């Protein structure tokens, strides 16, 4: 462990360099693997139809909660609804407490994954901040679908 009792400044710097590089190397490796596995993409229903993310892939789905689509199971703990960007539509199921601002016709972001049958199982429905607020991702998705103004008018 102790190579020599006294270490020259040069060797000390070498030690420091080796130490720093190994820590940073480990950190970089961790970061790269984590980015690969845990990056959560945002898709609109139209993009889901194009990109077809696999069943294990977790992603965020954003759009409007389609008016008239919200149904609850008998014990009212499971909620079914459809998320739309007014061009494409995806069926969603969610088990849990919905955020306070979840409303038909409002913007919403759900995180989860698709089943092979194309049903989106939401693990999380994200709470948004006020009634007039439209998540920028959703606004962009609606604009991309060319339906932005209509989305506004529907509210």
């Amino acid at each position, binding site marked *: 462990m102790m190579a020599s009792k006294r270490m020259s400044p040069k060797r*000390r710097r070498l030690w420091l360099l080796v130490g720093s590089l190994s820590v940073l190397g480990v950190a970089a490796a961790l970061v790269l693997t984590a980015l690969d596995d845990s990056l959560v993409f945002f898709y609109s229903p139209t993009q889901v139809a194009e990109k077809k993310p696999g069943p294990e892939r977790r992603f965020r789905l954003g759009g409007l909660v389609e008016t008239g689509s919200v149904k609850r199971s008998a014990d009212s703990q499971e909620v079914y609804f459809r998320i739309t960007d007014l061009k494409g539509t995806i069926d969603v199921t969610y088990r849990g407490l919905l955020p306070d601002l979840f409303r038909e016709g409002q913007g919403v972001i759900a995180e989860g994954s698709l089943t092979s049958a194309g049903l989106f199982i939401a693990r999380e429905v994200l709470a948004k901040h006020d009634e007039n607020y439209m998540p920028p991702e959703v606004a962009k998705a609606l604009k991309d679908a060319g339906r932005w103004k209509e989305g506004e008018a529907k509210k």
Partner: protein
Amino acid sequence: MIPELGHFALILALAVAVVQATLPLVGASRGDVRLMMLGRTAALTQAFLVVLAFGALTQCYVTSDFSVANVVANSHSAKPLIYKISGVWGNHEGSMLLWALILSLFGAAVAIFGDNLPDSLRSRVLSVQAAIGIGFLAFLLFTSNPFERLSPVPLDGNGLNPLLQDPGLAFHPPILYLGYVGLSVTFSFAIAALLEGRVDPAWARWVRPWTLAAWCFLTLGIALGSWWAYYILGWGGFWFWDPVENASLMPWLAATALLHSAIVVEKRDALKSWTVLLAILAFSLSLLGTFLVRSGVLTSVHAFAQDPARGLFILCFLLGVTGGGLALYAWRAPTLQPGGLFQPISREGALILNNLLLCTLAATVLLGTLYPLFLDLVTGNKVSVGPPFFNATFVPICAPLFAALAVGPFLGWKRAEIGPALLRLRIAFAVSIVAAIVAAVAIDGRATLAALAFGFGVWLIMASLSEFVGRVRRGRLSTMPRAAIGMTISHAALGVVVLGCVGTGAWNTELIRTVKAGERISFLGYELTLDKVEALRGANYIADRATLSVTVGGKPYTTLTPERRMFITPRRQVAETSIHTNLLRDLYATLGEGDATQGWVIRLYLNPLAPWIWLGAAMCAFGGFVSLSDRRLRIGAPRRTRPMAQPAE
């Protein structure tokens, strides 16, 4: 009248700041005492004027003066007084004014308590402080004037975001800002030292109280924010790796590193250039946090500003401060004298390891926070980097940090042996191993990383205790400096926080049930009965309140009353959770949607050790304050050992 006075005071403050940023600097380089003394007067005047402006805005809020646009947008006459006051900083303009206020108060504090500083250093510090002040005052006056009038005058205001109408959050911004802005003083000291071309133990001792105070407030501010998220968002979590949370965590990590590296400068006259760099980076990170939060590039409760001009201004300011600071560093740092030598296994070595790991942590958080912005700019893909990323990067890097943190205080300066240090930690080590095994078997039923993390928490506490007991045994308690006591408290407190995080994060239990009045839920030995759900009226909201009576083994235990509040202006629903704590665990209930016929959705959590997160954080800050009361910082008029070196031209 009052708003105009406030506006005028702000303009005067800007003018004073311009004087303060230039003349004392000229005085310091020419050795002109009169110009240098001007810095003090200017700092006090500037602080007085900004206090006046802030007072004027507060007055407008308290009296609900709806001729002021800012009051209309963020206040309402029916709001309770405390939220009228907290509404002052619950919006973009007001929070920037609060920032400017605290900045100028810190400047005034340096002017008042800086008696022991050499005139030239104090003048330069005050000038740099004023230069930052110019940026913020100009930002206020040119892009975000809080005193803008509105005509015609509306009858009432739009109200404050209900999520912010909460006692925990009312004081979160001022305390967090004391931390963010406190780092500006450290930054100013670093720039002043670069200008003087001199960093020595005396400098480190002068900087220490400011860094320590900023760090304490930052700790408290982050803890308050996390506590608020825990009980208001109703998800039972305490940290979401939200970009806004990350924005406060990064400066905290950098400030923690700075706190430790400054010790090496003070005691051993080494690591000087690195410490100056850290001081620049720590404040840059707190400015970056402000930019991310205020510019609207991130969406969150905190993102008030959606105006690109404001974002651009802060971005330019950030680039100016960081770029300027780093350029000055690149130019002047080579003139700093390298300090004392030491072996890798030594207190200095341990502190370097601490700095290395803390900075790596900060870099990881920075990467995770900025990566979505970067990817959006480059590819247009929208992504989010969430908890899985940080669990896979941040948490593993904490392990060596915690392992080393316990050993560091046992190592001597310059050269130490690792063997004896480990020997003195044998009891702490044994206890931690037992704790981890007990946690794995008894609590979890299987060996997991959570149990390992639990062991690390115990390790931190036990190691701090061992160190303390060691000192007491050697009869050094009476002469033990408060700084050392503070260190022991803060290090142990970190262990308490870790235990709280493991308990809440890994061993919590959640249950969602739909129940009607009179129905009963069994939850981990607690029997909860929904007695009733009643409607009630608050000052500016209407609410449904559920009454859940809790019994344990047939005996009445407690009553939980979660609410769902619907605020009137702005129309918004907020869940008010109800938490019963016995300091070992939280029983946590929120009320969801429902009605009398369908039943109500009730969400329950049992969060083991949850209170420890915030108790630990408070204890951590308390340790900082104990250290701040150290005698050597109070009287400390350290004499510089060598005559003043001429700054290299």
